[in-house]
């Protein structure tokens, strides 16, 4: 079960509001995504100050199996990246919804979350035919 304190995309990213007044959010990839990727060995993340576009490419995740693009769940500007992932990308395998967050950002418009999937919608989406 995905946590219901955040929203999800069909590209298997999650985003959660940290401070609604400051429009700040944190984003990562889902447990389903990390399980599909297998052992993650490398992240290429955006830089602080980079602009994010909803469903635009924001980086790459590389597992032993393959390279996949990371897509931003939101419009906004990057304020922080999870530096721990540079040396410990396996944190995303171990704790994708917590310690394994990818980026923090200031959102252009927090109402954008209303257009994303809820946890139950996302779980239904990933449970469906692959």
């Amino acid at each position: 079960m995905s946590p219901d304190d955040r929203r999800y995309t069909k590209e298997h990213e999650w985003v959660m509001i940290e401070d609604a007044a400051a429009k700040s959010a944190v984003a990562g990839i889902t447990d389903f995504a990390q399980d599909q990727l297998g052992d993650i060995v490398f992240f290429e993340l955006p830089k602080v100050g980079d602009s994010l576009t909803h469903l635009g490419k924001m980086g790459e995740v590389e597992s032993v199996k393959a390279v996949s693009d990371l897509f931003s769940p939101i419009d906004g500007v990057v304020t922080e990246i999870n530096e721990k992932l540079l040396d410990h990308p396996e944190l995303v395998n171990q704790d994708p919804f917590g310690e394994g967050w990818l980026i923090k950002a200031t959102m252009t418009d927090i109402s954008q979350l209303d257009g994303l999937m809820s946890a139950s919608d996302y779980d239904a989406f990933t449970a469906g035919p692959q």
Partner: protein
Amino acid sequence: MVEFGGWDMPVQYPAGILAEVKAVRKATGVFDVSHMGRLYLSGPKATDFLDWVLTGSASTLRVGRARYCMICNEKGGVIDDTIFYRLSEDRYLLIPNAGNRSAVVAWFQRWIDEKFSPGCTMEDVTVTTGLIAFQGPGTLETIDQVADTPLSGMRPFSWTESAIQGATVFVGRTGYTGEDGFELLVQGNDVVKVWTALTDSGSVPCGLGARDVLRLEAGLPLHGHEIDEKTTPIEAGLDRFVRFDKDYVGAAVLKDQQENGVQRRLVGFTLPGRSAPRAGYNLLHQGETIGAVTSGSYSPTLDTSIGMGYVLERYVESDTVLDLDLRGRIVQVNVTALPFYTRPRRT
């Protein structure tokens, strides 16, 4: 699960690729490689036949032993690489790759019909038997616990017969991981029994993902990547598995290449970090494309990224610095002697 050579195969088991690789390097891993082919070649002309279609020698292979070599076409291109076992004076077991089995069977049948019939017959037992690879330094101890007869004293590239849980097992001291170990050929209805005996003894089930990382670390070629019908064993650096003193299909081309050189050769290379070179990425020198990657991965054993690829002959020396186009990002790679990993010798 993925489709591989016409079979549904697991890329990984629950342990995950990195843990599976570690298990094989440090302890024991077990792979279901039943997708690989199993062909028997029998008859008074079987030895002459194999001498004609293989780059290695069958006539000098003693009964009880196995050999690795290539099956080449007339142009010296590699139809498949294979291990074959001499079972008796006139009977052999040969293991082609899953995806090449039908091509090998057709190729063999053509030459049997043309030159060696009657006197040589082929039997494909792939679908009625199973093949389990049991690999890693811990296999010596475990195999003696699970098998009815002691097997740890077997010589590399030898075979014998034993039994596990009442199942007859053909045991080869062979593998494709760069680690010590065994390959076990069993009847189809005994596969689960033997697999379970090995996993119950603590061996970690390993999938195709780990197998690919392990063979790459060991510098072993994979057909369809480092070798194919347009690549020769000389270009691939496999000349030690090629005889130059017998007549066989492709021999003239291979001998010519060995004497006069080739334009491109297979190299290994390393790059810092964990981002892997993938098949098809270009290798460059001063901005000019001089080769391409055939395989690459993060190597958990060496904790760096490694790759193999073909480059023009003048760039094959160790420590040559080349550029790799990693999805638009140019990174430096160092040409390195193969294999990347050699298992520690037992003392």
